[in-house]
């Protein structure tokens, strides 16, 4: 994985000192909250319901064991013994003191980490495929391109006061595991007919209160123009994105209002101009970065069969392991979704354990997924049982990847000052209900996603089943959505009808699941059946 050189380290160290100085000025009163707020946000520091919350960037979701240990140490030293992995592949801490924040950033800098631009109206942490560099179906490892863009977007002087936040995602396979088309810019690395690599740009997607699937505005941007093209996309947005209404300020509204053709025309015009400005790093820089993402030293001649005599272990392999490009290896997902647990939360002990397991079994690497789980990307099949046994002992062996109890949930009203309703208790009750009624096995793949407000951090628009918490006259109320997907078959869920109470929504999810079980045909997932039979049978069961 990427290693900082002296330049990267100096930039991050300078940022720590800058924030230390800004914090000092805030505490001594020379900086007012109004002016401090965007600065602390650009360092990942929010003021949430109970305290300050710090969001730490995990660039493209990749961590080594030292970094995971450091994240655990921060949870222990400065927080309350746990952290929360997010749908943007980051981690956040809920109980941070402002006066500690500069020291935390300094601790992070020691392991080449930071919280730069994890909030604010700027280019955020760049996300990617959690199986990058491991998946059998990828064209190339997308992370070097994400890293090029990470450096370009860090402290960008022109694009730090954008109309609104800006999220970029880079993938390199036709299978989308990162919700690429629901980003402000989604990039897919592709190959053209001549066999050259390039980048397809999807611009103007997003969730939030106006969910939009990004259209492709350029099918092939040559790799030596990646930064230049991104710069053109951003400049058009910075100049013409709406600033009169924060709910209409994301780039998706600009692209939608201008129309894809007109936005594209403006970008192409700006791009032609930008090409003359020499803003693109040389290909040698890409090559330099790529050297950090070489395949690890995979062994050859390994067994590709595991001993499946233990049925619990066999189940975990079938559900939580993903095909690897190297024979004899798989990518193993550690579920942070135990039945009744808090989706995405990990304790200090669990983080240390995952770090140790990454070191021992996965070439010192682990990944954060947008579904709030952790991946060990390169595990020998012959050592899986050993690994699984250790996970089981620590309560990390739940075999439920992409099933109804592998729920994405935002922190909701338990932690977040923007939330209208709690998300976590709903997730807990649903996973408990389906564990008790035994239907989870039968349901197979069913992605359920819960947001506690319209901002959609819990990706409810993109859930096969989505739940949106709203405030109805001071009481929590939950709307049900069906038919969303964040994968390559991206679609947006539709609301079934009137909302439900906290207990009512759990019943409603079970009813929707029952409709699927009654109607499904061979091999259909919940999503497939919904797409075939439509909303009516579900409405009938829910409200009839």
């Amino acid at each position, binding site marked *: 994985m990427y290693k900082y050189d002296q330049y990267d380290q100096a930039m991050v160290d300078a940022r720590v000192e800058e924030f230390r100085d800004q914090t000092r000025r805030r*505490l001594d009163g020379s900086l007012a909250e109004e002016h401090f707020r965007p600065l602390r946000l650009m360092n990942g520091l929010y*003021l949430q*319901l109970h305290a300050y919350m710090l969001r730490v960037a995990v660039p493209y979701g990749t961590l080594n064991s030292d970094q995971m240990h450091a994240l655990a140490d921060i949870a222990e030293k400065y927080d309350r013994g746990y952290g929360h992995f997010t749908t943007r592949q980051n981690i956040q801490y*809920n109980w941070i003191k402002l006066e500690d924040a500069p020291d935390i950033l300094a601790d992070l800098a020691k392991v080449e980490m930071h919280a730069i631009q994890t909030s604010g109206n700027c280019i955020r942490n760049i996300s990617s495929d959690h199986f990058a560099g491991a998946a059998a179906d990828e064209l190339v490892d997308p992370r070097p391109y994400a890293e090029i863009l990470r450096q370009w977007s860090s402290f960008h002087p022109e694009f730090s006061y954008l109309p609104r936040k800006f999220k970029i995602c880079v993938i390199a396979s036709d299978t989308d595991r990162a919700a690429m088309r629901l980003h402000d810019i989604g990039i897919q690395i592709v190959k053209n007919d001549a066999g050259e690599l390039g980048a397809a740009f999807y611009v103007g997607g997003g969730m939030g209160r106006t969910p939009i699937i990004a259209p492709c505005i350029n099918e092939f941007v040559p790799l030596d123009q990646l930064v230049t093209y991104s710069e053109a996309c951003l400049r058009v947005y910075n100049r013409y994105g709406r600033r009169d209404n924060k709910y209409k300020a994301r780039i998706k509204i600009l692209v939608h209002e201008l129309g894809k053709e007109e936005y594209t025309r403006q970008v192409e015009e700006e791009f032609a101009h930008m090409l003359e400005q020499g803003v693109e790093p040389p290909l040698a820089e890409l090559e330099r970065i790529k050297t950090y993402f070489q395949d690890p030293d995979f062994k050859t001649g390994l067994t590709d069969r595991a001993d499946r005599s233990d049925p619990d272990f066999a189940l975990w392999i079938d559900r939580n392991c993903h095909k690897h490009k190297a024979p004899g290896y798989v990518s193993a997902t550690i579920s942070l979704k135990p039945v009744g647990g808090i989706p995405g939360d990990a304790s200090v002990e669990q983080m240390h354990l995952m770090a140790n397991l990454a070191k021992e079994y996965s070439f010192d690497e682990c990944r954060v997924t947008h579904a709030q789980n952790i991946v060990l990307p390169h595990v020998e099949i012959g050592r899986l049982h050993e690994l699984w046994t250790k996970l089981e002992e620590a309560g990390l062996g739940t075999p439920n990847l992409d099933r109804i109890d592998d729920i994405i949930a935002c922190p909701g009203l*338990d932690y977040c000052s923007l939330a209208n309703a709690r998300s976590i208790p709903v997730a807990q009750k649903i996973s408990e209900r389906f564990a008790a009624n035994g239907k989870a096995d039968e349901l197979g793949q069913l992605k359920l996603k819960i947001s506690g407000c319209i901002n959609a951090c819990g990706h409810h628009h993109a859930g096969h089943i989505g739940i949106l918490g709203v405030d109805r006259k001071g009481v929590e109320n939950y709307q049900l959505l069906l038919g969303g997907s964040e994968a390559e078959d991206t679609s947006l869920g539709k609301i079934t009808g009137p909302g439900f109470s906290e207990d009512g929504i759990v019943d409603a999810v079970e009813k929707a699941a029952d409709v699927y079980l009654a109607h499904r045909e061979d091999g259909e997932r919940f999503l497939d059946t919904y797409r075939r039979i439509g909303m009516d049978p579900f409405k009938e069961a829910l409200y009839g």
Partner: protein
Amino acid sequence: MKILTGNDLKTGAVTWWDGQDWSLHVEDAVDVGDKAEEIMGREESARRVNVPYAIDAELDGNGKVRPAHIKDRVRALGPTVRPDLTLKPTEPEALNWVI
């Protein structure tokens, strides 16, 4: 009644205006009547509180202050999904007060 809440500037802890100072306990909150803006302006410039705001509250059956909105009751107690991290870890019934 109108009460004032905010966060401690240094620690971020949720605080409530008790008439003299900022308390960690909502039970200490006092009715500020029409003095909200005046108190908040003064206290914020003295950096004794960060981002204060006034909310509606009532006295519950036991004569204790209860914020009108669930969000402020969650703030007053702590996350309902981690009773161990709330201000009343040994009183499970406190969660009913929130919801």
